[in-house]
């Protein structure tokens, strides 16, 4: 088990180096001049060149990359000349906000998606199955910005029930979590249904029913547990999609998260923040994948890590 864990950790490190390198190469290849962007649209060319030199952007790309990687090895994500702060400070402030929103959204997705999927599987071919899948289809089709604005209009402007911008206590999590969670719930519901249908047709389920067990025990303790591997897989994937796709929701709800920070930084060509943000998100996703892998062993004792 330890050997498996260390091997996975090594792969995480390789992924992070790859992510750092890819983001560096891509960001320096896109059109746009960082020094000009920070200097502003009226700075003289002399002022722009002076700023470029002060940021080290006049050095060859290979030298900039080397400094970047060496800095990463020392835990230094770079310096934001736009904000005048170390990138680590900015990313460290935004990351918990993104993670909390992602976790609360996943909670909504799991609480909605799994029961919906189980219901659809158990009542296969009947009205409940159709309704569940239509709900899932609507959830997956609805653009998040449209849902967000509808929720804001109804619950904030008209009913004045919850706040809808920034973080103003636990109530602020409700609307953005629902906005993000509905989409993920749809995918989880569909995968749960598929997994459950596969399991419910197995011999051991027939045996359990034949032994006279209550249907709820058959479904939740025997079938769902065996379908959990595929459900956990989709949850892990959806978490990654959530992390990457939060930017629209973060913008509408003025949520101070990493997604919005990356987009703002990209618009102002503050490349250090973009690189730092991508790296942190890549690291988070890699850790989530690692935890998902480890969870398989807990859910299914037949899986061995030797």
């Amino acid at each position, binding site marked *: 088990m330890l050997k498996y864990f260390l091997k996975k950790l090594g792969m995480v490190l390789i992924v992070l180096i790859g992510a750092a390198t890819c983001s560096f190469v891509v960001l320096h290849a896109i059109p*746009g001049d960082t020094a000009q962007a920070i200097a502003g649209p009226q700075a003289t060319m002399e002022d722009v060149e002076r700023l470029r030199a002060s940021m080290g952007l006049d050095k060859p790309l290979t030298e900039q990359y080397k400094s970047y990687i060496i800095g990463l090895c020392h835990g230094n994500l770079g310096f934001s000349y736009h904000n005048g702060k170390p990138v680590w400070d*900015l990313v460290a402030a935004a990351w918990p906000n993104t993670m909390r929103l992602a976790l609360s959204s996943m909670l909504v997705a799991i609480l909605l998606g799994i029961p919906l999927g189980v219901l659809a599987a158990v009542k296969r071919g009947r009205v409940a199955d159709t309704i569940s899948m239509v709900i899932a289809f609507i959830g997956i089709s609805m653009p998040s910005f449209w849902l967000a604005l509808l929720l804001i209009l109804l619950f904030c402007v008209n009913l004045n029930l919850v706040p809808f911008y920034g973080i103003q206590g636990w109530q602020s999590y409700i609307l953005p979590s629902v906005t993000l969670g509905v989409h993920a719930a749809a995918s989880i519901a569909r995968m749960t249904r598929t997994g459950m249908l596969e399991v419910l047709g197995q011999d051991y389920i027939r045996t359990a029913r034949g032994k006279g067990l209550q249907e709820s025990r058959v479904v939740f303790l025997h079938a769902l547990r065996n379908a959990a591997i595929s459900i956990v897989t989709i949850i892990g994937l959806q978490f990654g999609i959530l992390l990457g796709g939060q930017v629209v929701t973060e913008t509408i709800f003025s949520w101070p998260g990493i997604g919005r920070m990356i987009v703002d930084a990209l618009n102002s060509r503050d490349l250090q923040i973009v690189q730092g943000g991508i790296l942190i998100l890549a690291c988070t996703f890699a850790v989530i994948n690692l935890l998902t892998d480890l969870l398989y062993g807990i859910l299914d004792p037949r899986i061995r890590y030797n």
Partner: protein
Amino acid sequence: MKKIFVLTAVVIASLLCVASCGSSQTGQSTEAQQPAEIQQGDAQIQVADQLVILIGANASTFDPHKCSDSNTEMLNKNIYSGLVQFDKELSILPDLAYEWLLADDDLTWTFRLREGVTFHDGSAFNAQSVKFSFERALAEETASPRRYVLESISEINVLSDYEVQIVTSYPNGAFLQQMAHPVAGIVSQAAVDAYGEDYVSHPTGCGPFKFVEWSVGERVVLERNMNYYNGAPMVEKLIFNVVPDDTTRSLLMQSGEADVALRLPSSDVQRLEKTGLINVISDNSVMTMFVAMNGTKPALDDVRVRQAMNYAIDKEAIISQALNGMATVADCPMSPVTWGYNSIFTYEHNVEKAKALLAEAGYADGLELTLQTAVGRYLQDVQVCQIMQEMWAKAGITVHIEQWEYQALQSEMKKGEFDMLLLGWSPSTGEANQALYPTLHSSQWPPNYNRAHYANETVDSLLLKGQQTIDPDERMAAYKEAETIIMDEAPWVFLYYVQDAIATGSNVEGVIVLPTEHILFKDVFIK
């Protein structure tokens, strides 16, 4: 099974803990704040606990010498004071200097400074503070993006504790307007020395408000400076909440969760005004929108073609269709609120005249051009381009629109290979030199900002005269003559001047909106 229950319980408990460990920042109450009352002289003035202001973009840096975006410069204008300041008409008023004199050489300015003023950290403001601040702004190692504003300064001398002398390298007619720019805000030497690179987290000026807190991407909090030389403001705290989405800002104002909202879309202005609970302040800003036509390109190098491009466009229609009436047709290369503006003339919408000019220039069969625009940089930029495309088509001019991401377009523009560009220009000093010299002097061709590649020797000498003359009447005469030539030679399609709109609650008074897109809260109070 037991393992599953334990695992599930642990996971749910963890999630609940994480979700409940939300930001420690408390939210603002949506209930109206009950202002305290204080006696000030004979008047009973209510001091409000806070004013909630919605801004559309993150702050960048609170170091005025390193800041280049107008959003953060607006915040800095409330933290820092300069030697002089603008009023709503962009006239110059005293600030930290109560008096100034220009010597006969037209180069040497002597400022007499207020005594007894202190920075937010308690250190004394004096002539040495001014010298330190300007030298820092001009220093190579600071690499200030706004250094060009102060570039005429060649020498700063401390004559006494409260007298400072600034010598310019040429007679600078725009000098006082440059002194009112945010980059000329005076910083505390004690704070800079104490915090060094971390000064941005501890900005310290003499302004009406002190810096309290900056949650990047979330909010900026300022509190009133009780020692402000002009009297402490009547609001304890200013809370600037970052709300990037225009619709969300409007909805928040409508629901009463904010007192002021900046940069509202024109589509929401009328709706908010109808509620009766919200005042909307809108007026011309210093921004001029235009299409720069590359004078080195075939066809566009002919003044008749450029004039035809102007006559083909119905600017009133663009303003009413795309901007809900919130702009003014341009009759000068700069906005009426910019010092040096003269009403020259407008190119009236006349398709037949456009066709006649094109025929005269040898383009009776029409011509084909490309128009590049950034997306989302200016209000309704793409829609304005599409409307113009249709209008030009009626005159026989086929225009292809290329939509670009703004920063990519900035790089592309420097190459100077485009046909036409949709652009806006806001002179940050609110006067003609910054409006015209960078955009129309022949020394400023790309990669600089004269995108039209415009060159006229008479205009060049007039612009230089305006820049290096002190007498305002002489400057104005030079600019008027230059503007007349420019309008006639039409290096641009002169479109419109943008109106900025901000919304305030009906009980909020005293918000000062400068045409330079800076908003001052020093006189704000809640009725």
